C-alpha cells in the first residue's frame, strides 16, 4: 500500500484557461490537495459601467470564446427583463435552436478533443487522426454541422452578429434551415456511434455526494430562463440568483467561488441531467440508461457521459424546433426597444452550467451596475473538494503518482472548465 503522493501540474492542458493541480500526501495524511485558478482577471463588470445598454451583450459575449452565444443570450435576456420586453415566440424558438447548436459544438469539442485523448491514452487528438480516423471524422462532422447552424442563425459561430435585444437583425433562409434539419437527422448515427465508443471507455470509479444546481424545467429540458433548483431541495426564482450562488473570494484563486447548502456545489451537464432527467428526449434517456447514467449520479467523471446524452437531446429537439419554424411564415425579426430605469437578470444554461448576467440601468439606459456569475466559478470549490477526496482515496488504494495525476487531470477536465470565463 502506498500512502504518499506528490502531484504538481502547472497550467493544466486541454482545458480552457490557466489552472494548476497540486497534491501532497505524506504517510496517508493529505498535506495539500489543491486546484488553483491563476488566470488573469479582465474586469468585464467594471468595463460596462457608464456604457449604453446596447454594449452589454456585444461586449459580454467576449467573456468567452467557447460559449459566446450563451453569454450573449444571457446578457440580452437580462436587458430585456430590465426593460420589460417579452420576446416573440419566433425569437424564443430561434434563440433556443441557436443555443442547442452551441451546446452541441461545445460538448463535441470537449468530448473528442479534450476528454477522449485521456480515455484513448494519447496526449491530444492529433494521433487519433491516424489511429481512429473514423472517430475524428465523426467529431468533425458533428462540430461542423453545429457551427454551420450557428453561422446561419446567429450570423457567426463565435461572437454572434445577428443576436440583439428585441430579436435578430435578420433571419435565416427557410431553405438553409431545411438543410440543417437534414444534416441533424443524418448526424444521429454519428451520435449513436459515439455512444458505442463511450461504452468502451473506462469511467473512473469515484463519487462524492454533491449538491447539483441547474435551471428547473417545467415542460421542457431547460436552457433559457426559469426557476433555479438544487438537488438538496433549494428552489429560487431567476432574479434571486445571488442567494443561489453566494459568491466569495479565496486566496490562490483569481476567480470567485460559490456554495449553497454545502461547502460547494456543482453545475453543468450532469447537474442539468440530475435535476431534469424526465424531460430529456426519450431517445436521450434511453442512451443515458444504457451508459449507466441515471439520476442522481454523484460521479463527476459522468459529466462526460451527461454531455453525450445532451448532444442526443439537442439534436433531436432541434429537428422539432426547425419543424415549428418551417411550419409558420416568418414574422418581423426584431421588436423596438425602449430603454428605461430598472434592473434585470438573465439565467441561461451554457454548456458548462448555469450562467447569470445582471444589469442595473439608469433612466437613459446606461449601466450603473453589472454582475456576471459564471458556471466554472460555481464549480471551482467542488473541483477542489473532489480533488481532496480523490487524492486520499486513491493514495489509500495504492495508486502510483502518475496515475493519480492523470485521474486528477481527468477529473478537472470532466467539469469542462472554462477558466478564462470564470475570471471574466
Amino acid at each position, binding site marked *: 500500500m502506498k500512502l504518499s503522493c506528490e502531484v504538481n501540474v502547472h497550467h493544466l492542458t486541454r482545458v480552457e484557461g490557466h489552472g494548476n493541480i497540486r497534491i501532497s500526501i505524506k504517510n496517508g495524511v493529505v498535506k495539500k490537495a489543491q486546484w488553483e485558478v491563476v488566470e*488573469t482577471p*479582465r474586469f468585464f463588470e467594471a468595463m460596462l459601467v457608464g456604457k449604453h445598454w446596447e454594449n452589454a451583450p456585444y461586449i459580454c459575449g467576449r467573456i468567452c470564446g467557447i460559449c459566446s452565444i450563451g453569454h450573449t443570450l444571457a446578457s440580452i435576456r437580462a436587458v430585456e427583463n430590465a426593460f420589460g420586453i417579452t420576446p416573440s415566440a419566433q425569437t424564443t424558438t430561434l434563440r433556443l435552436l441557436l443555443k442547442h447548436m452551441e451546446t452541441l459544438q461545445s460538448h463535441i469539442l470537449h468530448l473528442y478533443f479534450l476528454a477522449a485523448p485521456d480515455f484513448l491514452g494519447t496526449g491530444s487528438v492529433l494521433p487519433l487522426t491516424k489511429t481512429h480516423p473514423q472517430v475524428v471524422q465523426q467529431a468533425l462532422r458533428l462540430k461542423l454541422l453545429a457551427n454551420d447552424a450557428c453561422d446561419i442563425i446567429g450570423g457567426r459561430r463565435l461572437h454572434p452578429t445577428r443576436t*440583439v435585444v428585441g430579436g435578430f437583425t435578420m433571419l435565416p433562409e427557410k431553405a438553409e434551415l431545411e438543410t440543417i434539419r437534414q444534416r441533424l437527422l443524418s448526424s444521429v448515427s454519428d451520435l449513436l456511434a459515439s455512444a458505442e465508443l463511450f461504452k468502451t471507455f473506462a469511467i473512473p470509479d469515484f463519487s462524492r455526494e454533491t449538491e447539483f444546481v441547474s435551471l428547473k424545467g417545467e415542460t421542457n429540458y431547460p436552457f433559457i430562463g426559469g426557476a433555479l433548483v438544487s438537488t438538496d431541495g433549494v428552489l429560487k426564482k431567476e432574479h434571486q440568483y445571488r442567494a443561489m450562488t453566494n459568491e466569495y473570494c479565496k486566496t490562490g484563486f483569481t476567480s470567485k467561488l460559490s456554495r449553497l447548502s454545502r461547502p460547494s456545489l456543482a453545475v453543468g451537464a450532469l447537474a442539468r441531467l440530475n435535476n431534469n432527467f424526465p424531460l430529456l428526449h426519450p431517445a436521450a434517456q434511453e442512451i443515458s440508461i444504457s451508459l449507466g447514467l441515471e439520476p442522481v449520479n454523484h460521479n463527476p467523471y459522468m459529466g462526460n457521459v451527461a454531455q453525450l446524452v445532451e448532444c442526443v437531446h439537442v439534436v433531436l429537439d432541434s429537428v422539432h424546433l426547425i419543424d415549428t419554424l418551417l411550419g409558420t411564415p416568418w414574422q418581423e425579426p426584431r421588436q423596438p426597444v425602449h430603454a428605461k430605469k430598472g434592473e434585470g437578470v438573465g439565467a441561461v444554461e451554457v454548456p458548462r452550467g448555469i450562467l447569470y448576467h445582471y444589469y442595473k440601468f439608469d433612466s437613459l439606459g446606461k449601466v450603473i451596475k453589472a454582475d456576471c456569475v459564471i458556471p466554472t466559478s460555481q464549480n471551482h470549490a467542488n473541483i477542489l473538494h473532489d480533488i481532496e477526496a480523490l487524492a486520499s482515496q486513491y493514495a489509500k488504494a495504492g495508486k502510483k503518482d502518475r496515475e493519480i495525476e492523470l485521474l486528477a487531470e481527468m477529473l478537472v477536465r470532466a467539469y469542462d472548465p472554462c477558466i478564462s470565463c470564470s475570471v471574466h
Partner: protein
Amino acid sequence: MSEQLSYLGVPLTRPKVGFFELSSCEGCQLQLLNNEATLLDFLNLVEIVNFREGMSERADTYDIAFVEGSVTRKDEIARLSEIRKNAKILVALGSCACFGGVNQLKNRFRDLEWVKKEVYGDFPIESMEVHPLADFVRVDLEIFGCPIKKEEVERIVTNLVLGKAVHHPEYPVCMECKANENICLFELGEPCLGPITRAGCDAWCTSNRRGCWGCRGPAESANLTQLEEIMRTYGFSSETLLDRLECFGGFASFTETIRSRGKKTPSKRKKP
C-alpha cells in the same frame, strides 16, 4: 494527408508552431479548431508543438509563435518575453493582442483601484493597465479581428510557410460591404464604422445587418471627420460613435481626438 509538403515541386519544411494566450477569451485560438472542413490539412501544414488548450505535449522552441490576448498583469510581460526569445516569428493573434481588445475598456477609468473594487470588493487582486503585445516586445505580424477570420489566418499561415509576404487590405470594410451588395446600414437606421475600419473580414457583421464596431482597427487612410459627418447626418450621438470607436482599442488615437475636443476629461491612454 501527406507527410512531405511541397510547393511548385520544391520541398518545404513544416514550421514548428506554438499557440499561447494571455488575457483573452481564447476565441481566436478556438477559431482555428472551428475550421472543421480544412482543419486536418491545416494541421498538416505546420507542426504544432505547443497548444495548451488542445494538447498535453509542450516544447520550448518554435519557428512561429501565435500569441492571443492582451497584457494585463506583470507576469504576462515575463511570459511574453520568454515566448519572444524562443520564437523566430511572433504573431499577434486577434484584436486583444494587436490593440488590447475589449479588455482595454477598463483603461477608461483613471482609478484602477476603483476597477478592482467594483468586481472584487476588498479582496486583493493584481492587475495593471491593459496593453497590446507591441508595447513590450517586437511583433512581426498582426492578425486583426475579434474574432480573427479563419480563412484569413489560413491564408496568412500558408504564406508564412511558403515564405511569401503577407499584406493586409488598405481599404475599409465599407468596400467589402458594397461588393457584397448589401443595403447600407445607415439607410436601415444602424450606426456603422465600416467606412473607416480596415477590411479583410469580408464585411462579416454588416452582411448580417449588424453595424461594424471596428474590431480590425483603422483602415490606411481612415477619415474620421467624414464619418462624424455621416453619423451626424443620420442622427447618431457622438456617444454612440465613441462607444464603437473605443470598443476594441484600435481607434485609441481617434477617441482621444474626439474626447479632447469635448469638455470631458481627456483619456490618458496614448496610442503606442
